[in-house]
C-alpha cells in the first residue's frame, strides 16, 4: 500500500491553481504523473498523492515542474473562479470511475503519440527510398549512355574501316588492270600497307613509295607449300564406358548404382547348394564363369569350357549367352544333340525378337542349323539358316551356306 501524501500545499488565483507536493527524497526519475481535467495523481513509490479537483481544469495548458525535491503543478482553470478547497468530496464509486477514466485517457494519449511517431518514420523512410531510386536510375542512365556512345563510336570506326578496305581493293584492282595494259607503274600511289595489318586503331593512309609492281608481285608469287604428308594411321584406345551417353560427373553415382544392381541380378539366385561352398567367391559369379568359358573355348579346351558353362548355368539359368556358347562347344565336341538342345534353349530365352538381341539369335540359329546338317536333317537345318538370313540378309557366307544346303536337299530328293 503506497503512503498517501497529505503535506502538500496549494495556492490559487482567479484562473490558476498552484499545487506543491514534496517529493520526500524520491528521485525525480521515479515520479509518475497522471492528470486529467478533473483529477491529478502523482505517484512516486512508495508515496502517492491524488486529488479530485474541485473544478475542471485545462489539462493541455497545465504544467508540471518536477525538481529540487518538490513537484510544482500549475493548473489552468477552465472557469475563472476561486475554489473553496482543492478537492471535492465525492463518493468512492465516483472516485473509482474517475480514476479509471484517467487511466484510459492516458493510454489513449500514448497510443496516439506512438501512431503519430510511426507515421512520421514511415514518411521519412519513403522519402529516403525515393531519393535512392532516383540516384540509381541516374547511374543506370549514365552507364547506358556510355555504352551507346561506345556502340556509336565502334559503328563509325567499322564503317570507316570498311570504306578504306573497299578503296584499297578498288585501287589494287585498278593497278592490276594498269599493269595488264603495260602503263608505267612507278607513280607514287596512295596505298595502305597490306590489308592483313589494317586495324582501325592504326588507320593511317600512307603515301608509300611502294610501286605497284612490288605489291602485286608479292601477291602473285605462289607460296612454296610442302608436299602433302605421307599417310599415317594412329590407333587409339578410349577410357572404357559402358553407357553410350556422354560422361557427366553429376550422373556418375546414378550410373554406378544401376551397374551394381545389374550385376547383382545376374548373380546366384540360390546360394545354399552344398557344392557351392567349395567354390571361391569369384567362381560364384556367372559373368566371371562365362568369361572363363570363353577363354577356354578360344584356347581350344572345349570340355573345360563346357564345365565352366555348366556351373554358370547352375547359378543362373536365365542368361541366353551361356546356352548359346555351350552349344558352340558341343558342336566342336560333336555332341550334336546336346548342341541342338542348348541352342534351342538359348533361342527360347531370346524372345521377344528385337534388334537388340539380333546378334545372339543369329549365332544360335546358325549353330542349330549346323548341328542339324551334321545330323543330315537338312530340312530343319535349312529352316534355321533361313531364319538367320532373315536377321542378317547381307551376310555373304550365310547366303552361300544356305544355297549349298538347298542344293543338297534338291540333290537327294
Amino acid at each position, binding site marked *: 500500500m503506497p503512503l498517501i501524501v497529505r503535506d502538500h500545499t496549494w495556492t490559487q488565483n482567479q484562473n490558476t491553481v498552484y499545487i506543491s507536493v514534496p517529493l520526500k527524497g524520491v528521485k525525480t526519475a521515479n515520479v509518475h504523473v497522471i492528470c486529467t481535467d478533473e483529477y491529478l495523481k502523482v505517484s512516486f513509490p512508495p508515496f502517492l498523492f491524488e486529488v479530485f479537483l474541485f473544478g475542471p481544469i485545462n489539462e493541455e495548458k497545465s504544467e508540471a515542474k518536477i525538481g529540487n525535491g518538490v513537484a510544482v503543478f500549475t493548473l489552468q482553470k477552465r472557469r475563472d473562479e476561486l475554489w473553496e478547497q482543492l478537492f471535492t468530496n465525492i463518493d468512492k464509486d465516483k472516485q473509482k470511475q474517475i480514476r479509471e477514466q484517467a487511466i484510459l485517457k492516458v493510454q489513449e494519449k500514448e497510443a496516439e503519440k506512438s501512431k503519430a511517431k510511426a507515421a512520421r518514420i514511415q514518411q521519412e523512410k519513403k522519402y529516403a527510398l525515393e531519393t535512392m531510386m532516383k540516384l540509381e536510375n541516374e*547511374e543506370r542512365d549514365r*552507364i547506358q549512355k*556510355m*555504352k551507346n556512345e*561506345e*556502340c556509336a563510336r*565502334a*559503328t563509325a*570506326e*567499322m*564503317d570507316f*574501316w*570498311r570504306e578504306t*578496305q573497299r578503296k584499297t581493293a578498288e585501287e589494287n584492282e585498278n593497278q592490276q588492270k594498269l599493269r595488264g595494259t603495260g602503263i608505267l607503274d612507278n607513280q607514287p600511289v596512295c596505298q595502305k600497307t597490306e*590489308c*592483313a595489318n*589494317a*586495324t*582501325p*586503331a592504326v588507320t593511317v593512309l600512307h603515301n608509300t613509295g611502294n610501286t605497284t609492281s612490288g605489291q602485286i608481285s608479292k601477291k602473285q608469287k605462289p607460296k612454296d*607449300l*610442302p*608436299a*602433302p*604428308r605421307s*599417310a*599415317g*594411321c*594412329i*590407333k*587409339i*584406345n*578410349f*577410357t*572404357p*564406358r559402358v553407357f553410350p*551417353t*556422354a*560422361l*557427366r*560427373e*553429376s550422373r*556418375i553415382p546414378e550410373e554406378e548404382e544401376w551397374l551394381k544392381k545389374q550385376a547383382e541380378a545376374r548373380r546366384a539366385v540360390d546360394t545354399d547348394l552344398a557344392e557351392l561352398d567349395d567354390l571361391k567367391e569369384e567362381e560364384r559369379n556367372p559373368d566371371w564363369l562365362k568369361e572363363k568359358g570363353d577363354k577356354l573355348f578360344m584356347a581350344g579346351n572345349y570340355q573345360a569350357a563346357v564345365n565352366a558353362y555348366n556351373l554358370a548355368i547352375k547359378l543362373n539359368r536365365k542368361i541366353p549367352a551361356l546356352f548359346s556358347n555351350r552349344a558352340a562347344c558341343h558342336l566342336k565336341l560333336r555332341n550334336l544333340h546336346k548342341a541342338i538342345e542348348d541352342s534351342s534353349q538359348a533361342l527360347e530365352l531370346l524372345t521377344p525378337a528385337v534388334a537388340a538381341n539380333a546378334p545372339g539369335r543369329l549365332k544360335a540359329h546358325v549353330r542349330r542349323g549346323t548341328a542339324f546338317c551334321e545330323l543330315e536333317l537338312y530340312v530343319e537345318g535349312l529352316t534355321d539358316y533361313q531364319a538367320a538370313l532373315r536377321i542378317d540378309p547381307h551376310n555373304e557366307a550365310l547366303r552361300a551356306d544356305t544355297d549349298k544346303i538347298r542344293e543338297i536337299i534338291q540333290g537327294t530328293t
Partner: protein
Amino acid sequence: MSSTLEKPQIIAHIQKSLNYTVFDSRWIPCSAKFVCMGNFARGTGVMQIYEIQHGELQLVKEAVAACSDVRSEMEALLCRNLEVPECPVYSVKAHKEIINSIDGVGGLGIGDGAPEIVTGSRDGTVKVWDSRQKDTPVVNMEPVEGETKRDCWTVAFGHAFNDQDRCVCAGYDNGDIKLFDLRNMSLRWETNIKNGVCSVEFDRKDINMNKLVATSLEGKFHVFDMRTQHPTKGFASVSEKAHKSTVWQVRHLPQNRDIFMTAGGAGNLHLWKYEYPAQRTKKGADDVDMGVAGSVNLLQNVTLSTQPISSLDWSPDKQGLCVCSSFDQSVRVLIVTKLNTV
C-alpha cells in the same frame, strides 16, 4: 563505380533474327563480313554471308545446300570458295557419321606448312585432310579393332610453328582429351576430365604450343599449360566452374592470347584472363621438370539469350569485335571494350 567502368564491357551491338537454326558463324578475314551456317526446319542446309553496314547487317550472299544439316549430318566435307558459294573447292565423303567438328591450318597465313583440315566425327575417328589429295585422309586416328566407339566432339590444330610440326587435339564425349603429334604420327598425351569435352582450343595455332583450353559439360573448363610435359603426370592444369551449364565454346582473342571468352548453355558469355604463375616450371619429386598452372580471372560476364550460345568468333582485324550465334535462331555482333588496358 569507377572500377566497374574500367572493366571490359560486353556490348550487344547488332542482333539479327534469322529463319533457320544457326550452328556456326565465322568472320571472313580482312573484311567486315561473316558467314553463318545452319539448317532450315525442313532439313536443308544454308550458308549466308552478312556484312555490317551502318550499324545493321546486310545479307550479301546465300547458298542453300542440297543435303540436310550443313554442320551436323554432313556426310561430305565441303570447302567452298566464298565468292561463289555454290561450287565447292574441295569435296570428299569424309566420315560414316555426323562430322561434329572441323578445323583448318596452314593456308591464309595461319601457320606454316601444308594446308590441312581436321575433322572429328561421331564414328569415333579423327581424320586430317589435305586439299591437294582427294578421297583419302592424310592421317587417320581411329580406335583399335573391337573397341567401342566414342563420339569425337571437338578437334583443334596447334603447335604449327614450322613446316613439319603440327599437333591435333581431340575431345570425346567420355571426357577423353587426346593430343596427337603429326610429325611423329603418335599419341603424345591423353587425359580424362570426367565430363564430355565440348570444345578445345589452343591459344595460338601457329606457335610452339603454349596453352590449351578444354571446355566440358557441367559448366567446367580446364586450362592446360602446354610448355612442360611431365612423363607421367602430363600437363599442369587449372580448372574453373562457371556457367552452371554446358560450356559450349571457347575462343581466344586473336590480339591477346591470354584473354578468352567462353559461351555457356544458359545464353551467357564469360570473359576470362589467364595469369601466369611466377615460375612456369618446377622440379618434381623425381627431379623431373613439371609445369605449374596459373590462375584464371573473370573479367566480365553477360547474359544475352535464354538458349545456348553455340558458337563464337573474334574478328581477326578489329580487337574486341566478335560474332556469336545461339539456338534461338539469332546471330549477334558484340563489341568488347577496354581490352587493351586489361
